[in-house]
């Protein structure tokens, strides 16, 4: 292959790469927590499961629960295997007290978002 043909081939590959880079995707930006069950600041009876609803599809990568005055936090699972806008995880048996539910998710753009939800469980 001549030098000119090689240069033309390299140019074509470069253009192809740009076309692929610029091809629009359907997703938007970071996933943000829109809603949770229990809600932030809720005072409730012990929940059967935790549900997190996000603005975009997200993959839950870590979920832990910390009771006020106790450490370490308890890792929760099993986590949903697939990404989704609404993610649920079974709750363990909870005694009355204040809790912090900590989560980490990865969104479609590869960004990792961390957050927490505080709630209080009352005696039945």
């Amino acid at each position, binding site marked *: 292959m001549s030098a000119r043909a090689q240069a033309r081939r390299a140019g074509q590959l470069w253009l192809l790469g740009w076309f692929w880079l610029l091809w629009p995707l359907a997703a938007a930006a*970071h996933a943000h927590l829109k809603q949770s069950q229990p809600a932030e600041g809720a005072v409730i009876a012990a929940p059967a499961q935790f549900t997190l609803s996000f603005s975009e599809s997200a993959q839950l990568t870590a979920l832990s629960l910390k009771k006020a005055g106790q450490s370490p936090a308890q890792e929760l699972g099993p986590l949903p295997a697939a990404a989704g806008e609404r993610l649920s995880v079974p709750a363990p048996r909870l005694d009355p007290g204040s809790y912090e539910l900590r989560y980490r998710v990865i969104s479609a753009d590869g960004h990792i978002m961390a957050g927490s939800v505080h709630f209080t469980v009352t005696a039945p």
Partner: protein
Amino acid sequence: MGPDAAAVAERALLLLCLYQAVGAALFIALYRSQVASICERARRLGGMAAVCGLALALLQLPLTAARMAGDYSGLHDARLLRLAMHSSQGLSCALLLTGLALLAIGLLWRRALAAAWVGAAIAVCAPALTGHTSVHPQRALLVPLLVLHVLVGAFWLGALWPLRLTVRLERSAVAAAVLQRFSKLAAWLVPCIALAGFGMAYALIDDVSVLQRPYGLLLLGKLVIFAGLLGLAALNRWRFAPVLAAAPARARSALQRSIVAEYLLIAAVLVMTATLTTLFSPED
């Protein structure tokens, strides 16, 4: 240090290595006929930066897995490592590794210099494959702007150390000619950094109230440092460089100090960029 802080530090150092290696390849392409011995040193420095960048890029996916877990247990969690590899960061990291490997080969092995230019072209595209730019509806605008932003930033940072060596080691007439040529080129290219930055901010920021939150404050901080950098560049061009022939000793030391200050300011901008892109988003 938690995995979030470690990821910020890793990204900041990786950006510094990437900019240095890409900038060295560009400096050599532009100035090797004028200052061959300086380009030889730039080649070695750029090659070392590319090797360090490769080592840092290899840490990227394990650190992403650790961030997903919230602690370092993620480093050996097969599920999270697989998730990191299949995310947009995995693709970006693969492109970065390819680009940096070609840069290292091209810069450290004299006969393969062309590989460094191919590597530079690949490596500057890598940041556009992840983060907001990769999935935004206005991706067709954001990707070229980000690539331009990185390319010109790398040209600027990568030229500084060879320019400092030129001022220190070359004859005054040669140093003045190289500085004049660099300044002329920079006068056209450096505004592109600001224009690309403003373009990206315009596309990404929906609400000006973001300027009161960490993402916006870091953006404003970058803008303030950029203004300082322009001031230093103007000082070099119009005050120090013209007197290089007449008062070489004074002008040489002033220019070297000013160039070191420029380098440190750009490094500070890269630390802010790493913090901004790792921990915050315009929607926060």
